[in-house]
């Protein structure tokens, strides 16, 4: 077992062992070889044990049982034991095989010649000659009309492949320019759909809101497209703190007694933007940290966003609930090519 009797086979293709002086202990000591043999078979045995543990755990452990690991938390018992038994079972096989190769297989460095990758000159010449023969027989060069018309046909051939992609989706139309906000539409609370009175929002307060009827639109469309562009934030500032708003000159300001309504969709790449710092009136986007000053027309004060956060003009209806005075004056969300 300890000494591997090498009957050296040599041929044109067999690698040549490099003479070396380093001898492994397992090569000269039968005791060491025996030890390695035991160690490696132990590793394989452990792997088998792991497989058994895996099966038992899979059958026996309830899927919702947890196990408390000191300092590291409470984990799913099944996940932990399945992972460890399967993982270690695999690891032991690998460790055993590698140890076998290192300790007991003949471990001699060998040398082999590389051969140039380039073909010999005569092979190249022959290949070229054969190609030319083929080219000549194809009449590709002597039939210009056929050649050109074939190229033309090949150029048009992919058109159906592209055309077939057309119905992947509708044309953009003006969808990116509009939201469902209309004059007189109530601004209601997100999640609960309750209407809001200005007095409900204290100074420093914030409300995640949406147009009244959004859930019905979602239901009807079967998607979340409208939610992805029409959600808004209501904040209330001390009217004295408001520096400017987005209303055109001459028009009444777009707030209602210090309550301001802004789009919740970041004009950078569209993340919902809602990290509101009530003391600084800054709104921060958690994705790329664009920061907008809500007291100053939603102006960009930091970060990669290029445009101010669109403001929605609001007022109250006869019942005292907040309504949109108009839709957004500009497209909400990320910039796009067609946007002016």
């Amino acid at each position, binding site marked *: 077992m300890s000494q591997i009797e090498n009957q050296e086979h040599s041929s044109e293709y067999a690698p040549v062992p490099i003479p070396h002086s380093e001898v492994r202990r397992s090569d000269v000591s039968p005791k060491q070889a025996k030890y390695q043999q035991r160690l490696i078979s132990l590793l394989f045995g452990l792997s088998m044990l792991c497989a058994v543990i895996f099966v038992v755990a899979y059958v026996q452990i309830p899927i919702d049982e947890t196990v408390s690991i000191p300092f590291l938390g409470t984990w799913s018992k099944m996940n932990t034991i399945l992972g460890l038994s399967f993982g270690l079972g695999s690891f032991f096989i690998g460790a055993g095989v*590698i140890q076998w190769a*290192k300790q007991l297989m003949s471990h001699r460095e060998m040398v082999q010649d590389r051969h140039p990758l380039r073909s010999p000159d005569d092979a190249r010449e022959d290949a070229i000659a054969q190609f030319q023969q083929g080219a000549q027989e194809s009449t590709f060069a002597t039939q210009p009309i056929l050649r050109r018309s074939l190229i033309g046909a090949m150029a048009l051939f992919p058109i159906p492949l592209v055309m077939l992609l057309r119905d992947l989706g509708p044309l953009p139309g003006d969808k990116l320019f509009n939201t469902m906000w209309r004059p007189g539409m109530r601004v209601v609370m997100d999640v609960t759909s309750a209407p809001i009175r200005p007095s*409900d*929002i*204290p100074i420093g307060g*914030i409300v995640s809101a949406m147009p009244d009827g959004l859930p019905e639109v979602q239901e009807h469309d079967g998607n979340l497209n409208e939610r992805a562009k029409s959600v808004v934030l209501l904040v209330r500032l001390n009217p004295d703190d408001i520096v400017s708003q987005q209303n055109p000159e001459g028009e009444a300001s777009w707030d209602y007694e210090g309550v301001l309504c802004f789009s919740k969709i970041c004009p950078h790449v569209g993340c919902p933007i809602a990290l509101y710092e009530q003391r600084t009136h800054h709104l921060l986007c958690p994705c790329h940290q664009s920061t907008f000053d809500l007291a100053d027309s939603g102006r960009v004060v930091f970060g990669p966003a290029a445009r101010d956060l669109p403001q929605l003009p609001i007022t109250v209806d006869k019942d005292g609930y907040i309504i949109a005075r108009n839709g957004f004056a500009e497209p909400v969300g990320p910039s796009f090519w067609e946007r002016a």
Partner: protein
Amino acid sequence: MKSLATQRRKPVAALVLVVLVLSLIGALYAAVGSATKVQAVDAPNSAEQIALGEKLFVQSCSSCHGIGGVGTDEAPSLVGAGEASADFQLSTGRMPLTAEQAQAQERTPVFSDEEIMAISKYVGSLGAGPSNPTASQLEYENADLALGGELFRTNCSQCHNFAGEGGALSNGKYAPNIRNASPLQIWQAMITGPENMPVFSDQTMSDSDKQAIIKFVNHLDNEPSFGGWDGGSLGPVSEGLTVFLLVIGLLIGAAVWIGAKVR
């Protein structure tokens, strides 16, 4: 606990905190319930209490907030700040402020529970403002957990992270970790808007909504980390670090072992 409070912003804090929090799950179950009852006792709004509060206020608060809490150049007026606000600031140790920072840090409270109650009552008496919830308002056990999750993800997770671990705001400000906040503190924070946190008024966030959110936060605190160690619940950043430092590290070790000469 003091050292924990001062170390809480250190890089290892996430790990330490999670470990602490998760290993104390059982204790917290009990602690949360009892703390609720102790703190939310509706003591009579006695004149004595307010008088004591005024005395303490003059000693410890008026240098910045002014006599009578009318505010100075250094600190805002507390007229109308309300009892809940004062209670939150004092019981989380944010006030009295020790140093000018981006925002007040959470610390061990300086005052005793009685003193805090007295000062809070006094501040509450300065003008109408948010008051502390009653014990029954804080009973959240029957609230809707799933609704709490939805409200949390709509209103809270943008700053406090999906697992309540907290996150960064602009210019060094931050939203704190709220996993170990008490129901009373969560309630107070929502109605008073401490620091830069916006206010969620009773009208826009009903009692039952608040209770649902408290239930969800409490659940976050107690939920097992099913898949194993959670890396601080920081998302893909800690996962990427784990791949490079742990997985590739282990495998390089294996590769070196494979190539190592045997004697």
